[in-house]
């Protein structure tokens, strides 16, 4: 039992991992055929992976409705939303636009999905302003440096800010866009590069651990 529960999966990860890794260094046709097959298979497996999220969402809301838990009425709207899109997709045969204009699917994208998904993230703008006021604390020299860089960027990205900069600091001869350009291309690159290299090696090491079966927490417990 341990063999099929644990060792074969670990062998799969090792074999696919090593073969895929090696294919980077091997130009032979065999290696290309291998990677092409893997690509197709991978594409299919991933298309199923999203069902995980779907099923767990359905489960949890179905349970809420079945148990009449607090606010179970709202859970019905999860299914309403889902069915609206799926049915309109079925009716329109998966096409969003025909020569006659929007199909029902295109319509539900434009007026339902678009509005909901756009607004969810737009709400964050409000939290940014309140964070700016209530918790942006210039409490150290480091935070001050952060603030100065942020200040210049926020100011210089809009025309009105550029005008203000020119009025106040125009005499220095450096336009705010040049200063932003410099910040983004010199010190910010240095900072980002430093973090990036470290994190990227971290990812490589984690990948090695996964291939060699040292890291297997993603498999869950026995």
């Amino acid at each position: 039992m341990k063999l099929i529960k644990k060792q074969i999966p670990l062998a799969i990860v090792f074999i696919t991992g090593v073969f895929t890794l090696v294919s980077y260094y091997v130009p032979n046709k065999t290696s290309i055929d291998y990677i092409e097959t893997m690509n197709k298979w991978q594409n299919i497996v991933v298309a199923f992976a999203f069902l995980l999220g779907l099923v767990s969402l359905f489960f949890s809301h179905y349970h809420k409705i079945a148990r009449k838990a607090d606010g179970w009425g709202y859970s019905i709207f999860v299914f309403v939303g889902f069915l609206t899109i799926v049915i309109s997709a079925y009716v329109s045969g998966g096409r969003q636009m025909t020569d006659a204009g929007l199909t029902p699917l295109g319509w539900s994208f434009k007026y339902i999905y678009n509005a909901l998904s756009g607004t969810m993230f737009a709400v964050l703008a409000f939290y940014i302003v309140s964070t700016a006021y209530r918790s942006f604390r210039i409490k150290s020299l480091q935070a001050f440096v952060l603030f100065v860089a942020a200040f210049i960027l926020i100011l210089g990205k809009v025309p009105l800010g550029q005008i203000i900069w020119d009025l106040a600091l125009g005499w220095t001869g450096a336009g705010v866009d040049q200063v932003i350009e410099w910040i983004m291309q010199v010190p910010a690159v240095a900072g980002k590069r430093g973090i990036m290299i470290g994190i990227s090696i971290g990812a490589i090491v984690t990948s090695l651990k996964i291939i060699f079966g040292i890291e297997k927490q993603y498999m869950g417990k026995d």
Partner: protein
Amino acid sequence: MLKEQLQKFSRIDRRWIFLLLAITLLVPIIKPIGLPNKTIAEATSRVYGNIEKLPAGSFVLFSLDYDPSTRPELHPMATALVRHAFSRNLRVGVVTYIAGSTGLIEELFARVSKEYNKSDGKDYVILPYMPNILAVMTQMSSDLYGIYTKDRNGIDVRGMPVMKGVKNYKDMSLIVCVTGTAILDYWVAFVGDKYSVPVAGGVTAISQPGYGPYLQTNQLKGLIGGMKGAAEYESLIKQPGKGTSGIDALNLAHLLVLALILTSNIILLIIKYL
């Protein structure tokens, strides 16, 4: 006394601040201020230059991977890029790896193809959404028909005039990825570097600073960042759109943030040292 009042003021109910923002953003939408964007970042003009120098008929691959949640920033950008490509008579292929972007792509091409009198299958092709980006990218290096046999409407792509002579990355002159996700990193790492195809990008302002290193090494042949970038590109192709009007509306809101940070910190200083 003043101290207490200040303290109270610094703990103001945040909904007042929300209201303030709503007003500063809504008013310019209804009544535009009319300050156009003047400056153009070098990275943006590099994208422009790279498209501009392509001979007519070159095949450009657009990877449009953004959904409605980043639409205000990225849609104007993508629109401007496609307009530019059409005006230069380039052949355009579109791929996407974000399920939510298919609707936006349809909308974009329905609108822009009319402006330039371009037809589906002849001047551009929209390939269907694919879920697993890495697999598709790797596949396209040898034979893209291995994965894309049909376009999004189920029409065979092999016979399309737009795909003539296009089989893999070697036949593409440029790849432009517009995204709010890490998909541009994938294009750089798994395609641009590996198969030496020029890759340019358009990203949200949030991820823009992160691409500095790739720009400096020329792994990225240009980058359009956020709504400002969209406005810049619109002014490069001389077709003002949503980017230009957006940047105008953001004027006051940007200053509001700065004012708020300064006010709260000054209040704190006063409380501390008074």
